[in-house]
């Protein structure tokens, strides 16, 4: 690595150049306090009216936009989750085996009821065809899933397999990004985001050949979301 003194000089070079151009020194006094206050209490942007709905309709809106973005949806009760996963794999001509996130939320479902279904808990490997994960939240405004990484949710499960099955509780569906940020701060503390927060809207896609959308560029080709009633 470069010597410490060089990198300190480079750092000061950039900061001083910014201050010189802005014709001021380091932020100080009231100006600094106001900027710190803005960081501590972030102001929200203009509200998006379409997601400002009572919970039931919010779930409908989530499903609408998720399907608009090429995900498929099954609305099920908690007892139906394992059977719907098996049925989806059968309908899609996929093997009855998957890598599953080692999360307490998923362990709460009765997977033993599906005798043909073989599950391996852990991260995804290159050979896995199907991943099953939960989701930290769903965003109704755009049909977006929010995945927070951690020991209970390896990031590779969101990306490597061609098919991603997501179990999302209705109570975790919120209006917009802003509610997700609040939940993240509540759960992890204001000073410690999870290593990776993936917000995912539908399957992977590319428009790089003739501006025409094709699904399954590098991430999953298929995304099936089980929206679970409570």
């Amino acid at each position, binding site marked *: 690595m470069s010597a410490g003194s060089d990198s300190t000089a480079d750092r000061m070079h950039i900061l001083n150049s910014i201050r010189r151009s802005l014709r001021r020194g380091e932020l100080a006094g009231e100006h600094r306090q106001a900027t710190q206050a803005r960081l501590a209490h972030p102001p929200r942007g203009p509200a998006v009216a379409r997601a400002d709905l009572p919970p039931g309709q919010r779930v409908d809106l989530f499903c609408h936009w998720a399907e608009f973005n090429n995900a498929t949806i099954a609305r099920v009760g908690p007892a139906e989750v394992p059977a719907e996963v098996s049925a989806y794999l059968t309908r899609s001509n996929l093997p009855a085996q998957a890598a599953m996130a080692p999360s307490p939320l998923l362990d709460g479902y009765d997977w033993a009821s599906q005798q043909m279904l073989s599950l391996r808990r852990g991260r995804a490997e290159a050979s896995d065809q199907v991943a099953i994960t939960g989701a930290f939240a769903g965003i109704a405004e755009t049909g977006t899933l929010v995945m927070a990484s951690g020991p209970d949710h390896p990031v590779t499960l969101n990306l490597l397999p061609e098919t991603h099955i997501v179990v999302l509780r209705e109570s975790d569906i919120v209006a917009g990004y802003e509610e997700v940020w609040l939940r993240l701060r509540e759960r992890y503390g204001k000073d410690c985001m999870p290593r990776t927060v993936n917000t995912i809207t539908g399957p992977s896609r590319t428009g790089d050949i*003739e501006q025409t959308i094709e699904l399954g560029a590098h991430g999953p080709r298929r995304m099936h979301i089980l929206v679970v009633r409570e």
Partner: protein
Amino acid sequence: MQSTAHDFKENIGAALADPNLQDSLAKLKTGFSERRRQAAERLPEFEALRDRARDIKNHALANLDFYLEEFERKVTSLGGHVHWAPTADDARRIIAELCRSVGARTIAKSKSMIAEEIGLNEHLESLGIAPIETDLGEYIIQLRHEPPSHIIAPAVHLTKDQVADTFLEHHGKLGFTRRLTERNDLVAEARQVLRQKFLDADVGLTGANFLVAETGSSMLVTNEGNADLSNTLPPMHIVLASIEKVIPTLEDAAVLLRVLARSATGQESSAYTTLNTGPRRPGDLDGPDQYHVVLLDNGRSSVLGTELQDMLRCIRCGACMNHCPVYGAIGGHAYGWVYPGPIGAVLTPHLIGVAEAGDLPNASTFCGRCESVCPVRIPLPRLMRHWREREFEQHLTPKAVRQGLALWAFLARRPRLYRAVTGLANRTLALFGRIDGRYRSLPLAGGWTRYRDFPAPQPGGTFHARWRRRR
């Protein structure tokens, strides 16, 4: 990369004569720009969000040093490292040293315009480190040894058939010997080839759409998932970002995200928006062991406080080029350097000099479509005019243009003489053109009449004369 911006006029001739390019560009009108219009119409708050997006970026720029230091503090507190690179040279050196520190042989690289700006790939290759572009469009042009022609759709200048030929040529040795004709087969083949490269890479290098000061996160917006594989699988993640990418908070990111995807591709949301904060944590089953952010200045700090500061608001959505009639006619390569279109016409003279790139801001009729669609309301025509003025001041404008302008200025300051001369010219042109109302050639107007007829003035005199009669 080596600039050919000084050959802009020759580049234009070649672009207009390229049938494949013209076929590809014809799709821009019905592709990105139509989808943007529909997305904007679906969201009643879109214009208010654009105003807010502009204000957020202005606020971040006015306090840039503060937010960069906050960002650094947060990254460091979570086990990441921030490196400050005043110049392109510094950034190349820092990244090369990081790669060498882990003995890297291959790098999974996710699309980054700043990497193009600093010529990173050539530098790494010269050191024996292979950067592999993993965005499909970037991968295609890397195989073809071409620069990107668009900031979000780097291979937009190519047809499907050209891509098929390129894959056949390069994938044959990997056992893919059939020439493909369908887009989805081409995508699937690239996916197979690149998957192994992700798994083998020693370093993942990505850009960033935003850096969030509040949390110390780098934020990446993509559709393919290649950036996410790049920042998850290899043991080291390097983020290369320029200093103006920093924004205060996650709430601010929410506003910018709402205008970014809609302005770029007309999507409600891109498929993947990812926040990365530091290296993997204890107990994590995947993710990189090291997380580094390289902050590049490369001339940006000197623009603050000047009338060019507005260009630093740019969030690189590409809407200005998707809607530009000049870009739509000549494509991105003609601009001769990294950034094409209206934003390129403004950035390039700053980054490589007005002597090299002075033609770019002249390639505009100031129709204003770029400004009208810019999500952060950058006054692009005004900024292009700024560069035309600098070009004129530095005596870089061609002699004939300077003399013409001097003659016009002489007349314009003498209203009576001006009216007499324009009246005479008008009558003369009307007289000789009156048979079919147009000219196929005119002295001093060869640049115009070579491609189209020049309309003869309508009877009734000059605008001045007719206006006076009306009143």
